[in-house]
């Protein structure tokens, strides 16, 4: 489903990703962990074209982006690639001037050109799925963080992506609101959605992930099943990180 080959990303002179390669199978749930500055979020942002890669290739579905293609071609492919990917942000990034339902159907109307009445039906179904149908006419400002993130997930799902990406989806939430968002994500995983998630939710990773990837200093240091990584990490760097995170 996702095939990243030797992805390099630089910010000025700083090389943030030093040739990261990763394959993700359909229906696989992958959680990327690592210390801040390890490049995990940058890698996720490269996967859907929010950051332009400086080296390597990324293939999602049938679309490939190549660091060597022309600017115009690159942008065209990125748009193509985004048809297959949904993104959920740490800060939700809901559109504040639209209601919950308005947020969910915005992509359907503007991008997919679906009739409003039709889009609203789809939107209501998705809000129901994330348990927020009764909040359909509320604006983001009057929703809790957990509710906003669930609306954001519904907004991404509306575009029927083949892969869902989550960039620390629960980091900005109050602890008591984390569960409701993880619950929605767990349901998605059970439905067979391919998911890539950057997160510090070790509990979620243990329970739901098929594979855990540990990144540090722009490289993948170690990867394996959650039990392998959490119980028997082989690399010192991983052990040190986990000893700090899991208490």
């Amino acid at each position, binding site marked *: 489903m996702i095939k990243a080959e030797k992805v390099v990303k630089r910010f000025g002179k700083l090389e943030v990703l030093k040739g990261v390669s990763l394959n993700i199978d359909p229906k696989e749930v992958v959680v990327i962990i690592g210390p801040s500055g390890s490049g995990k979020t940058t890698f996720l942002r490269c996967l*859907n074209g929010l950051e332009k890669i400086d080296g390597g290739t990324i293939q999602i579905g049938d679309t490939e982006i190549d660091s060597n293609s022309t600017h115009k071609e690159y942008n065209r492919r990125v748009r193509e690639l985004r048809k297959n990917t949904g993104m959920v942000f740490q800060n939700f990034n809901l559109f504040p001037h639209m209601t919950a339902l308005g947020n969910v159907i915005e992509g359907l109307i*503007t*991008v997919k050109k679906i009739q409003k009445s039709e889009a609203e039906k789809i939107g209501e179904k998705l809000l129901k799925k994330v348990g927020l149908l009764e909040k359909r006419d509320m604006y983001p400002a009057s929703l809790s963080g957990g509710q906003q993130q669930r609306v954001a997930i519904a907004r991404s799902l509306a575009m029927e992506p083949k892969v869902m990406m989550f960039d620390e989806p629960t980091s900005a939430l109050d602890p008591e609101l984390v569960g409701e968002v993880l619950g929605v994500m767990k349901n998605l995983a059970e439905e067979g959605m391919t998911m890539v998630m950057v997160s510090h939710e070790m509990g979620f990773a243990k329970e739901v992930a098929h594979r855990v990837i540990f990144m540090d200093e722009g490289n993948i240091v170690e990867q394996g099943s959650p039990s392998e990584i959490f119980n028997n990490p082989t690399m010192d760097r991983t052990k040190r990180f986990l000893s700090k995170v899991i208490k």
Partner: protein
Amino acid sequence: MNLVVPEIFFLLKGAYYTLLITVVSMTFGLIIGLFVAIARLTGNRILVSLAKIYVSIIRGTPLLVQVFIIYFGLPDWGITLEPLTAAFISLSINIGAYLSETIRGSLLAVPKGQMEAAMCLGMTYWQAMKRVILPQAARVAIAPMGNTFIGMLKETSLVSVITVTELLRVSQLLISKHLVVMPFYIAIAIMYWLMSTMFSFILGSIEEKLSKSYSS
């Protein structure tokens, strides 16, 4: 009063031109301002420099000089304009520069994540601009833009010098006809004030409406 009332239609015609010039220049100024702002934020180096130079020149020279260049200067290069056309053009160019700064600031005030979220839904840059960024920027821009608009309403009086029969010019014509000064100046002062107040009120209600849509 006895002098002003019989001339009320002439005065209203002047007010009409004042309004017309304001609205037309504001509309074109808005279009210019929008493109200049976007050019400065996203354009290549040449486009950014051109936009900067434009804003710098317009803001660094008096409006009256700009009006003179367009109306009295351009005929030297074989471009002769009607007074009203010259007024439209010079004021649009002038207001566009000021509005571009306001719009640029308000576009920058919209968090970066908004554009990213829109792009991730598959929108093109312009779709995201229209549906997501501009509506939010408008909310920030409306108050300063309202000030510019009301400022423009008053600055239109400058084009009386190129014989556009807007409000000030009308009063001057009436003064030379009746050889009395004060009533006519007071009359147009009141008319300017009424129009400004009216627009303040309209802009205030737009502002309120825009801010309402953020809460339910």
